[in-house]
């Protein structure tokens, strides 16, 4: 008896510690980014958010072009990626046993783990080189490719999670398949789908690798059209930390905190406010 109880306690203690260790890095990241980044943003003030980059060893300037670029890229990527991804997810959920449905599912899983730097190289070859310029469009396409499998897989799983009786009920009312999916099932699965959409958006807002060969980067111009290079916050951070200058490292910390805030701002309120669907 005693041995069994001790074993149980040990097991519980073990998983508690491991759980703690798993989430520890998250809090450490948030903490250190806030501690290093907040003073920079406070010192830089409004200029840090709307201004352009300072020269080396000379003040903070601002990261406005990178912020605008990140919003433009994320928006364009969502525009390109979300409709296709959601429809793909619906297809995979509606036809789970067809050849194409099965293949779609497997391929989505592979796409999810695909090295993002290769996505960047691919887009460079098909878009950047023919267009003759790095561009917001190319960056957005690369991000859309990274985003799509997440959204599609979440959509599919959310739809599969809807109990069969709702589908049967809808069909029994005489609805067409289109109406069953878009009027009934999607409404019930909205939390799961929206989670996928948000994870996709939040993920690409912080991506660096797909942008290295596509977006081009910008520190002095905000936005010149979707066929011209744009900046992005992760790209800027990557660039700045490689420089030997103290002020560039400070700007990178400030930019990291802003990126974190943008990430949490997309993620938290919607996640929390979204009503659970009672089934």
């Amino acid at each position, binding site marked *: 008896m005693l041995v069994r109880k001790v074993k149980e306690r040990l097991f519980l203690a073990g998983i508690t510690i491991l759980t703690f260790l798993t989430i520890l890095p998250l809090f450490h990241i948030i903490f250190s980014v806030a501690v290093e980044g907040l003073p920079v943003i406070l010192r830089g003030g409004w200029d840090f958010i709307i201004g352009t*980059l300072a*020269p*080396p*060893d000379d003040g903070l300037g601002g990261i406005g072009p990178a912020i*605008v670029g990140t*919003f*433009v890229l*994320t*928006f364009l990527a*969502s*525009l390109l990626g*979300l409709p296709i991804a959601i429809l793909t997810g619906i297809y995979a959920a509606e036809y789970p046993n067809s050849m194409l449905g099965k293949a779609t599912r497997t391929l989505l899983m592979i796409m999810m783990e695909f090295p993002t730097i290769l996505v960047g190289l691919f887009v460079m070859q098909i878009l*950047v*080189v023919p267009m*003759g*310029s*790095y561009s917001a469009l190319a960056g957005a396409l690369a991000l859309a490719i990274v985003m799509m499998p997440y959204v599609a897989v979440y959509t599919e799983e959310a739809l599969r999670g809807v109990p069969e009786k709702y589908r049967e009920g809808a069909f029994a009312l005489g609805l067409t398949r289109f109406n069953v999916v878009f009027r009934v099932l*999607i*409404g019930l699965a*909205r939390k799961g*789908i*929206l989670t996928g*959409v948000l994870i996709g958006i939040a993920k690409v807002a912080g991506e660096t690798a797909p942008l*290295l060969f596509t977006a*081009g*980067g*910008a*520190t*002095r*111009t*905000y*936005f*010149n059209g979707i066929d*011209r*290079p744009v900046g992005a916050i992760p790209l800027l951070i990557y*660039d700045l930390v*490689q*420089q*030997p*200058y103290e002020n560039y490292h400070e700007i990178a910390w400030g930019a990291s905190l802003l990126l974190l805030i943008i990430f949490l701002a997309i993620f938290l309120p*919607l996640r929390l406010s*979204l009503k659970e669907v009672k089934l």
Partner: protein
Amino acid sequence: MKKVSIVLLLVLSLALAGCAQQGKPTSGETTSQKVTLIGSGATFPQPQLEKWIDAYMKLNTNVVIEYTGKGSGGGQADFEKGLVDFACSDPPIKEALWKKLEQKGQPLQFPMIVGAVVVSYNVPGIKELRLDGKTLAGIFMGKIRYWDDPAIKNLNPNLDLPHKEIIVVHRSDSSGTTKIFTTYLCLVSDEWKEMVGSGKVVEWPVDKLGRGVGGKGNPGVVAAIKNNPYSIGYTELAYAIKENLPIVALENRDGYFVKPNDTTIKAAIAEVSMKFPSPKEGYKEKIENLLNAPGKDSYPIVAVSHIIVWEHYQDKAKERAIRNFVKWILTDGQNSEYIAAGYVGLPSELTQKLLEEVGW
């Protein structure tokens, strides 16, 4: 799904607001059109270039210049593919690439800024160390094992050198700095030339002896020197200055011991400025020609970083803007007020020669 569309609308309106804000000043304020120049390439001259761009954009409000640092090779590739208007590269363009470029138009390669590779060390209590090329090669070969070796002692009779093993720090990644440093060692030591040679990566003899330490990038080398007492290594001037490391005075070709600074680096480039090819034949430039320059004040290990542009662009406004920018870099831009710490400007006889050769 309504919420998704609300989010999308929000993001859209934000993006549009951003565009609108940006759009206003360009359309209203100036009569002439704004020209945007895009460049990419070497990271070494990037801080200097950013400084120039900032100053230049203040003087010429209708030009916007964007530069992305991604390495010399990346810049050359971008330039070849026509993705950028100009590129920066530490090593001069090789002949094969130059010939390819010439099929599209006349490329021009200008030296724009000088840097130096310096030898730094960490020996407690020692602040002023002198070395000559042969001894330096001996240390990096591993032949000179202790700090109180007679070869080092003879050059530094006044120093109290410890009987400690020398730890040799070198770059672990592929690097133009290594290429320049090993090319210099080849010039001053036949033995080094035969046994090791030069390149972006070489087989360090000291590694086999167990006294070599590799560092990634200039920051890695600087950190390794700082963390290992009795070590010696090579790095770019800007990093040694920034980290306050002691710097070796090297013996130059004429037998004088010189430390790298504005005067000695400029003197070295001035001595060899006639060896620079015309910007129209940039591929003829050789790293060796700049090293171990003659002259009393010349520091022996210097290198230039280049800017590469086309002579003609389809867009004539762009052509004018590029020309003015390069011309400004080579004239006013070389004034000390526009030069960032750790960099050295070009001597004026060289910049004049270059500009005359392209007729600007």
